[in-house]
């Protein structure tokens, strides 16, 4: 069908996969063992659109986050980055809560029919981020250095170390750099 889509110029965006997110709720322990402590923060990045239904979803999200904050103690914060993408930034020292809330937010966005606007979610560790690509349902490491450079060595090492526990993106050209992560 991909061939036909290209032939007729139909642009389809892939549906997000969110179940693989949970792989991180155990894999973070191995990260700790390797010396990369989770910083207790994660973020969901999505592109806001011009639609009244989108604002509805945003207020629903706020409600939901207030509710889950009282249960798990996850603190959340909305922020727009330099590329006009919106971030829901979560802070929680309990990493499993972080993963569960990230999953919950992703699910809510999908339920509101804005699934194609989900770009990625990001989990911060010491010196490195793990980025979850919704379209692929895979993670990849992103270790930014100064001057828009990446610590490739560290990223490769993490791939080999984490491969058995996390679904790591196999195609290296899909390890997209993501500059301007606001946390």
């Amino acid at each position, binding site marked *: 069908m991909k061939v036909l889509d290209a032939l007729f110029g139909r*642009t389809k965006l892939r549906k997000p996969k969110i179940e693989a997110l949970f792989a991180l709720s155990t894999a973070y322990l191995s990260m700790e063992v390797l010396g990369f402590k989770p910083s207790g923060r994660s973020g969901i990045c999505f592109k806001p659109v011009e639609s009244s239904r989108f604002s509805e979803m945003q207020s629903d999200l706020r409600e939901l986050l207030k509710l889950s904050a009282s249960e798990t103690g996850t603190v959340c914060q909305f922020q727009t980055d330099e*590329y*006009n993408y919106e971030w829901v930034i979560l802070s929680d020292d309990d990493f499993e809560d972080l993963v569960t809330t990230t999953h919950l937010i992703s699910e809510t966005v999908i339920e509101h029919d804005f699934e194609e606007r989900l770009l990625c979610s990001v989990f911060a560790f010491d010196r490195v981020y793990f980025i979850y690509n919704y379209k692929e349902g895979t993670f990849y490491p992103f270790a930014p250095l100064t001057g828009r450079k990446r610590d490739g060595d560290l990223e490769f090492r993490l791939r080999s170390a984490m491969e058995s526990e996390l679904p790591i993106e196999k195609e290296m050209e899909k390890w997209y750099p993501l500059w301007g992560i606001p946390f």
Partner: protein
Amino acid sequence: MTKKWQHDYGLAARMFLTMFLLFVVYIVFIGILSYAGFGVVPIMFFAGIMLFAQYYYSDKMVLYSTGARIVSESEAPQLHGIISRLCIEADLPKPRVAIVESSIPNAFATGRSPKKAVVAVTTSLLQRLNQNELEAVLAHELTHVKNRDVMVLTIASFFSTIAFFLVRYLIFFGGGNRREGGSIMLAWLASIVVWIISSLLIRALSRYREFAADRGSAVITGHPSHLVSALLKISGAMERVPTDDLRKAEGMNAFYIIPISRSSIMALFSTHPSLEKRIAALEKISGRMEMR
């Protein structure tokens, strides 16, 4: 669960019809050439090699002819940042990014496959557009990459190119015996007719691919209005650009987001739909996005 506004079945049907007509014209052309006693296979072989080279080296040729320069992450952080995010959204490998020194605000994409793609913008485009508009234009170009427009248009123009060469050079083969002269005349006339009809069809196809890329930009960014304002800015700026730059740029029209025209060419011969039609189509998408 794809959304209705993301599809335009009319557009797909028109594309199919155009491609089908091209196919018919080409089949008839092959028939006439073989009837006139021409070895179709060697002609196809040579044209095939030529077009394949053109397709295979499209990125290098276009970069060379436009003077585009590949830029790194640190040289153009904003441009790279926008493209990275659009590529995640569109599920494309990140293409190379190039900048062209030019006073004409424009952008193009080329390359034989998504992995070999190059997306280029002019310096003037970077100066004139705001971030949202730039993003919309880049999403339009990435849709060309995703739809493999370089390949589609190369294949579509295969026999048209053969016909063009026959029109130009067949006349030199004349002067043999009379029977051969007659068949050369037949082949020559057929070539002219095929060349004209196929050129029109290819241009129609190219216009449909533009509509598809506009739609793709709306799907990827979720903001059809950003592309509208970018198109208006680009076309407004284009009326005021100096002419010697235009002459250089003319050959590149089919790849640009907005073509450069010195006179008002007939719409039929244009590689791009008119601005009014593009904006109308985008506004329709915008309306349907809100309604769904």
